[in-house]
């Protein structure tokens, strides 16, 4: 539990390595389906690799005891999580990581699906040291008419990006499609930002998700290698 946006208490899944550290921290942002087992498993994966990792429940306002899928459905019906609320919750999670006695002071953020957009939003809004956007839609591009979530593109905020950005995308994805990834890359170049993109043929949306038919082992394995190289490079001791 920690204070999120507006001082509201929200819950989170925290996974830590054994030992005195110091360890870098990773904020894991869950996907649109919510604070589910798959994302908690990802959080444990970071701990197993020597990071303090936290995954806040962005749908906690639906209730702490609500099933993640029910909370996701209710949040979807309500139009999604407002960006301002997410940034407040992310700030609370980053502060929680930095306050851990084993923290080295550095924090990275990674997110999947809607969490990929949230990772970018974190990196343009908060003081973090590295970011990873895994197929986050609507960093660029405008949601189609009738889209149930009230989201707006973030690309205009690229100049405020305060840390290096790693992007991992499937070329068969529609949200974000390759042309939207191109647009983000052009914006990063124009702003002179440090970034690295990897795009995978034969992979669509959610290729990291081992529980789903969208899983693509080759892309996921290569992607994980890049993720750990990225955090290894940018989250080493303070």
């Amino acid at each position, binding site marked *: 539990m920690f204070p999120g946006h507006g001082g509201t208490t929200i819950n989170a899944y925290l996974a830590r390595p054994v030992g005195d550290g110091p360890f870098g921290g990773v904020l894991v942002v869950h996907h649109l389906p919510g604070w589910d087992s798959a994302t908690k498993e990802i959080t444990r994966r970071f701990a197993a690799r020597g990071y303090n990792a936290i995954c806040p429940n962005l749908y906690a306002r639906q209730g702490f005891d609500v099933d993640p899928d*029910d909370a996701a459905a209710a949040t979807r019906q309500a139009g999604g999580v407002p960006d301002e609320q997410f940034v407040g919750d992310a700030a609370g999670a980053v502060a929680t990581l930095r306050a851990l006695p084993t923290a080295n002071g550095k924090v990275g953020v990674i997110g999947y699906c809607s969490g990929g957009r949230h990772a970018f939003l974190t990196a343009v809004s908060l003081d973090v040291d590295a970011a990873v956007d895994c197929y986050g839609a609507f960093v660029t591009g405008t949601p189609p008419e009738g889209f149930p*979530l009230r989201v707006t593109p973030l690309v205009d905020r690229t100049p405020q990006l305060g840390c290096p950005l790693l992007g991992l995308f499937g070329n068969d994805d529609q949200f974000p499609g390759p042309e939207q990834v191109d647009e983000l890359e052009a914006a990063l170049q124009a702003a002179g930002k440090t970034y690295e993109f990897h795009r995978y043929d034969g992979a669509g949306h959610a290729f990291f998700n081992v529980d789903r*038919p969208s899983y693509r082992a080759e892309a996921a394995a290569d992607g994980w290698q890049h993720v750990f190289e990225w955090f290894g490079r940018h989250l080493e001791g303070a």
Partner: protein
Amino acid sequence: MCSYLTVPTDIAGSAKGPQGWFPVTSAQVYFDHPFHAPFDHTLNIDFADPARGPGARVAVELSADSARRLVESIQAALAAAGPASD
């Protein structure tokens, strides 16, 4: 971000969830990534009573083909019932 158009509709009736029967007042219909069904995308329907909280929900995730067959079945059943069947 992995979702498409949501088509909500008001409904009147009941559904049975883990806590037993409860009235349902809305159906959210959308084609999106499922939580459980082994397909990339499914036709999802949430039968819910939002006033009772997020847990008052009965969810189904159907392949596109089976969803179309279900629509035909519903239409056939309602047609057999006749026009004054409320």
